[in-house]
């Protein structure tokens, strides 16, 4: 078995989730190679060399891959796929974008967003927004797989793989990059965020929601609110999480000063990990929280921000 993993990166930094995809590949088993496709991406190659469990790092450093356009990258990966049984990528921006193209060009189905490996051809993945878990067997001889990184542990970075420079420069010539707008301070959308921190009536007023901002910045979190906080006029309605607001299911949900009314729980109870911060030990939020702290939120929030 030979496995090719596409390295998710921005020409400077190897995205750490790639290390988790390598771990998913190890669960399948076989000789694992990485592909770094980019432009002026030597720093990424240096990091890729050190990924444990990898025998070779293929490098396609060419202007055609500078922005990792799906049209161009998919042609490269499809060409390289001839030598591999399994093609994998992390289910992040780049992988989600180009991998189905590779699958279609290879005339195979793609198994998206796997969270478990049962065997070399059988995988576990969430469907219906994670409200059901499917076990799927691939009947294709070549597998094209994207990996939900949060489901796997990262491998170590004490490897020493060989680097192989490729000469390919597949340019489809049908698309071009215009610009990127990365706004570091702008928080992710509530529905899409991996981490959400929400405040409730316990925040006491709208100004106190500033206490959530520092923590949100550190965690890349979106900020939400309970209906009680919205109704009290602390924050606008588009921040509302709950039955009549947004339904969220992030990896981490931090409920601050929220009692846990059933209408609020309906909007967040499918979150992977729930943390509750509330001074009332009897608050129903603690019944669904994985971790709770019974304390005054005005003591906990500044300390939490410091220690993250």
């Amino acid at each position: 078995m030979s496995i090719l993993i596409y390295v998710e990166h921005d020409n400077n930094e190897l995205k750490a989730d790639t290390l988790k995809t390598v771990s998913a590949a190890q669960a399948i088993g076989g000789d694992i190679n990485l592909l770094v496709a980019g432009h002026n991406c030597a720093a990424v190659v240096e990091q890729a060399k050190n990924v444990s469990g990898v025998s070779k790092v293929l490098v396609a450093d060419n202007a055609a891959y500078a922005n990792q356009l799906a049209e161009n990258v998919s042609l490269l990966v499809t060409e390289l796929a001839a030598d591999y049984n399994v093609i994998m990528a992390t289910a992040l921006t780049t992988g989600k974008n180009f991998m189905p193209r590779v699958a279609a060009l290879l005339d195979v189905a793609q198994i998206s967003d796997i969270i478990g490996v049962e065997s070399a051809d059988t995988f576990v993945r969430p469907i219906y927004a994670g409200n059901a878990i499917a076990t799927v067997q691939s009947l294709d001889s070549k597998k094209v797989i994207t990996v939900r990184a949060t489901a796997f542990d990262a491998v170590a970075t004490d490897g020493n793989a060989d680097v192989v420079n490729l000469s390919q420069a597949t340019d489809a010539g049908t698309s071009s990059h215009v610009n990127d707008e990365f706004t570091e301070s702008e928080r992710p959308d509530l529905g899409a965020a991996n981490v959400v921190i929400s405040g409730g009536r316990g925040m006491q007023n709208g100004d106190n929601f500033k206490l959530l901002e520092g923590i949100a910045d550190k965690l890349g979190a979106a900020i939400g609110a309970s209906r009680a906080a919205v109704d009290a006029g602390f924050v606008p309605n588009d921040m509302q999480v709950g039955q009549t607001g947004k339904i969220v299911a992030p990896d981490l949900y931090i409920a601050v000063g929220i009692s846990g009314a059933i209408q609020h729980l309906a909007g967040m109870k499918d979150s992977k990990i729930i943390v509750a911060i509330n001074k009332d030990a009897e608050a129903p939020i603690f019944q669904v929280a994985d971790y709770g702290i019974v304390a005054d939120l005005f003591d906990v929030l500044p300390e939490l921000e410091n220690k993250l």
Partner: protein
Amino acid sequence: MKVLVPIKRVIDYNVKVRVKADNSDVDLANVKMAINPFCEIAVEEAVRLKEAGAATEIIAISIGDKSCQEQLRTALALGADRAIQINTDEKLDSLHVAKLLQKVVEEEQPQLVILGKQSIDSDNNQTGQMLAALTGLPQGTFASEVKIDGDKVNVTREVDGGLQTVALNLPAIVTTDLRLNEPRYASLPNIMKAKRKPLDVKEASEFGLDLTPRTTLLKVTPPAERQAGIVVETVDELVEKLKNEAKVIA
């Protein structure tokens, strides 16, 4: 400019899905069905392009049994001009859906195909990209803005950490993200009018494609039950648990 909008009939997003007792699949008996939310955004975007004078004709298409005609009528009521149902009782892989759509693209020659980025049932996020690959067309996935500019379309995409804008030669494939627009409600007169708009039915088996399944669904189970939580005493303990036990923060 002709715009093709493939849409999918799925469980209504407000319905809590249940797994069948025999773990063979989810139970969709007597469940409210609707147009996939991302597909609805695709229809809306096509209608806005037509209202702006950029598009001249909107064709909605759906693949499935007769029941998906209900969602095609919804698309017609929202502003599509005509509809095509590709009839099949089979549960197709995204690859097969893309292959059927490829045939329709070859026949209809649209300048733009707008699809939802993923369906809320299978959550695959594949069909648009696969169709783009099969037709050799460029793609703008996860779109939050679509601007026609002569023989190109500029697509602003939702990417990790921000936005990316790409310029695609037309014809092109676009897949929608949530922020692209807010779909309108169909008015009663438009719902009535939609009943008289043309809806062609074609058989999937008549496209000359091998639609043999490439995957087998072995089982479907409910997600793990939430474990009883613990109360931690200090913030340090909380941070340690989140890092090393829950692994949700770095």
